């Protein structure tokens, strides 16, 4: 119980950052929160469903482009556009799954990567949204949202600051929603089935878990959230281009490192990982490439010496797991 209280206090403190903190901090933490959303998603895919995707940037980009299309071509509200972005990403994840699920293991990884590159190159052909060079989100479309005016009335500050405030809170809400949903999902019958499939596919199939359907469900849902996150990211960034929206480095490589460092296949892993990632970035911001080299080396070291990452090693060393995903066997089995 205490762990939830600490967590709640932490979430509350984060919620107060836009009111008390500087705008630079808000922008920094916004990126961190979005990376955390992506990391939680990728962890569900790779750490729990065994789907090692190297192509999640596809759904970030699709969500972002769909949001831009809603705002620029249809004149919709960006927040609504963001939700549409999630839906479009989920819809497009169906044909992607149809293709990628025919591939297994490493083939799946390469297949998703190729699909993401196809998406990048296809969106480069969308001339109405700037083709290969991209385009900017009309400032007024974001800054004239009713909610921006409300925020300014409450807290003062410029329109741009209010936009940062809004996107920050949306990102925080998204993190909390994904965390809660992951927690509930992983402890549900489906989630436990998923972990059973990961740990022993043959036995899981024998007790009636259909691994493909479960994995497809995870793939679709993470595409949805990743799409929303993509839309949100680019509301704040304000400018889109295929290379930025479909960046392998920014939206998948960093995310993989975050999950691996924190502890793949554990729920708190991505949170730990994103904190380490942010700390390293702050400490080594001036060194550019050196920072990336260090990140790569840390990732390699984790795989060699502590495969379950920082959180997994912590649990292993101490035998103390404050957030157990399994739970006691139910008193009586419920028939299907």
């Amino acid at each position, binding site marked *: 119980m205490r762990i939830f209280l600490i967590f709640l206090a932490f979430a509350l403190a984060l919620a107060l950052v836009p009111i008390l903190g500087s705008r630079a901090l808000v922008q920094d933490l916004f990126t961190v929160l979005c990376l955390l959303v992506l990391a939680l998603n990728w962890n569900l895919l790779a750490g729990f469903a065994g789907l090692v995707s190297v192509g999640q940037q596809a759904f970030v980009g699709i969500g972002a482009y769909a949001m831009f299309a809603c705002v620029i071509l249809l004149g919709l509200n960006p927040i609504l556009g963001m939700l549409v972005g999630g839906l479009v990403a989920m819809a497009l994840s169906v044909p992607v799954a149809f293709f990628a699920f*025919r591939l297994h293991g490493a083939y799946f990884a390469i297949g998703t990567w190729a*699909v993401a590159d196809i998406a990048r190159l296809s969106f480069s052909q969308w001339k109405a949204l700037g083709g290969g060079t991209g385009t900017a989100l009309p400032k007024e479309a974001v800054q004239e949202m009713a909610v921006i005016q409300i925020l300014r009335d409450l807290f003062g500050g410029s329109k741009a600051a209010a936009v940062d405030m809004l996107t920050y809170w949306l990102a925080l809400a998204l993190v909390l929603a994904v965390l809660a949903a992951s927690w509930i999902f992983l402890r549900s019958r489906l989630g436990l089935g998923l972990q059973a499939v990961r740990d022993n596919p043959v036995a899981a199939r024998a007790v009636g878990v259909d691994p493909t359907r479960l994995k497809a469900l995870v793939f679709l849902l993470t595409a949805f959230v990743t799409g929303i996150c993509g839309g949100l990211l680019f509301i704040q960034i304000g400018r889109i281009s295929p290379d930025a929206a479909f960046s*392998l480095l920014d939206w998948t490589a960093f995310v*993989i490192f975050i999950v691996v460092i924190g502890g793949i296949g554990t729920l708190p892993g991505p949170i730990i990982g994103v904190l380490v990632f942010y700390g390293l970035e702050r400490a080594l911001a001036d060194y550019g490439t050196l920072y*990336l080299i260090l990140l790569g080396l840390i*990732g*390699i070291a984790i795989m*060699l010496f502590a495969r379950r990452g920082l959180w997994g090693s912590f649990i292993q060393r101490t035998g103390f797991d404050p957030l157990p995903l399994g739970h006691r066997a139910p008193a009586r089995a419920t028939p299907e």
Partner: protein
Amino acid sequence: MIWLDTLVQGLLLGGLYALFAAGLSLVFGIMRLVNLAHGDLIVLGAYLILGIGTATGLNPFLAALLALPVMFALGMALQAGLLNRVLGEDILPPLLVTFGLSVVIQNGLLTAFSADSRKLPLGPVEAASVPLGPVTIGTMPLLTFGSAILVILALNWLFYRTALGRAFRATSDDPVTAQLMGIRPQRIFAVATGIALVVATIAALYLGARANFDPSIGPARLLYAFEAVIIGGLGSLWGTLAGGLVIGVAQAFGAALNPEWQILAGHIAFVLVLLLRPRGLFPRALD
């Protein structure tokens, strides 16, 4: 006639991709290792050739010859010191380790050589071409293609006609029983990765001689190479050549329609082949 020309250009480009892919295919076939750093290792090879050439004043072809043993040793060390430790049932550790390695190599090169693009200076042969029937073919693309065929032939000979190749196949089939034959799988894997990097060095020579390169181009080349390996079928070297040709021809025709469609057409060919044949064109192994 323009279509014939496009086809020939595509086949020649496919030869380059097959060179990128051959080492990958060898390693993949023997130890099921997906080396995400292969593209960056090729780029590393190109810088090594450039460095040797600059230091000694040798022609890139001769510099590449000197680079071969260096890259072979690097491959063995990489496998023995790092990759052997993460091979196993779980595919995630090798994927993540080679991914980390890719980032390290890329940024290491960036630190050492900056982001400026370089080229291996070959001299007059770069612009030379030979008329072949109705089409004219550049000498360099032809050399690349010929080298790709030779590399595949040599690897096939090694794989099917030598004691080492026998040990490769036995280890790939059943590593535990191979140990009962006195084979040390880890050593076999190290040799295999060494050979893969020798092939990567040959690929690096043509990569660097035909076009500009910079530290960032590894991953894209890796993707084409992987597509070639997967289209070709696990563990089949001729399949890998065929896969490279499919990607090359698709890219050439895509580019003929619209220059922006070159890469896209290659990816789409990859997806189409896999939709029709999920195990590739010529799968050797049964898994």
